[in-house]
């Protein structure tokens, strides 16, 4: 139960970075940390104590395997996260070219 709570603390560190920081790169870092925490939570829920990896071995019948379903979902989520991070980074680079800064308050000021 404590390990779930530590995973939640990792989530909250990312949430703090998204809500408080003003630099665009720091906000992207917050999004990445949040995504890591969610992936870790899925795998923690799927873990079975003294389990084995869900890969069959020849001439041997194994019954205590961990849950393969959340692993399959997280495997796709990791790659999607990379593509979405690249999209956010490219938008941030365009914003830097336009305004010359990563600070979101100055970007807002220059808009009007």
């Amino acid at each position, binding site marked *: 139960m404590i390990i779930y709570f530590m995973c939640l603390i990792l989530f909250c560190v990312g949430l703090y970075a998204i809500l408080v920081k003003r630099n665009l790169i720091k906000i992207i870092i917050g999004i990445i940390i949040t995504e890591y925490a969610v992936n870790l939570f899925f795998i923690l829920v799927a873990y079975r104590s003294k389990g084995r990896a869900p*890969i*069959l071995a020849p001439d041997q019948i194994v019954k205590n395997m961990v849950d393969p379903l959340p692993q399959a979902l997280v495997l796709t989520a990791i*790659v999607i996260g*990379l593509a979405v991070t690249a999209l956010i980074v490219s938008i941030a680079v365009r914003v830097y070219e336009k305004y010359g800064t990563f600070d979101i308050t100055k970007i807002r000021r220059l808009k009007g």
Partner: protein
Amino acid sequence: MRQKNLRNQRSGMTLIVKTITRLTIGLILLFGIYIVLHGHITPGGGFAGGVIIALSFIHLMLAFGKDLALKKLSEVQASFFESLGAIMFLTIAILGFVGGYFFLNFFSDKGEPFRLFSAGIIPLCNVAICFKVGAGLFAIFAALVFLKIGSGEEK
């Protein structure tokens, strides 16, 4: 040869990095292909193998500059391979209708387990996803590198 090396030295990193890259780039590409083809037997699969293949081309681009890497795999070819992967995946999905429903594993003989040629459509899907992920990520990185060079010229 010496003249060519000197001319190449203007783009990319130093001679040490280039020599090491020349030695390791084939091994990285081979490892990616191995991960993709054995995805249904051992850990790995299309996603991890595709990212490794994209990383081998990115390694080439970082070490030798963008011209040589784009000669091996240009941006148009990258988008072509990505579309090819999507079409392959969708075609495999639709071919399942010969047996009744979407994404049917339509090979009646699944083959012997723990062999390379087994498991029906799963290796084909792995290859399709590998094309899609590898070419897509390489296209993203090439676009970012182009943008950085373009903004340097404007200033």
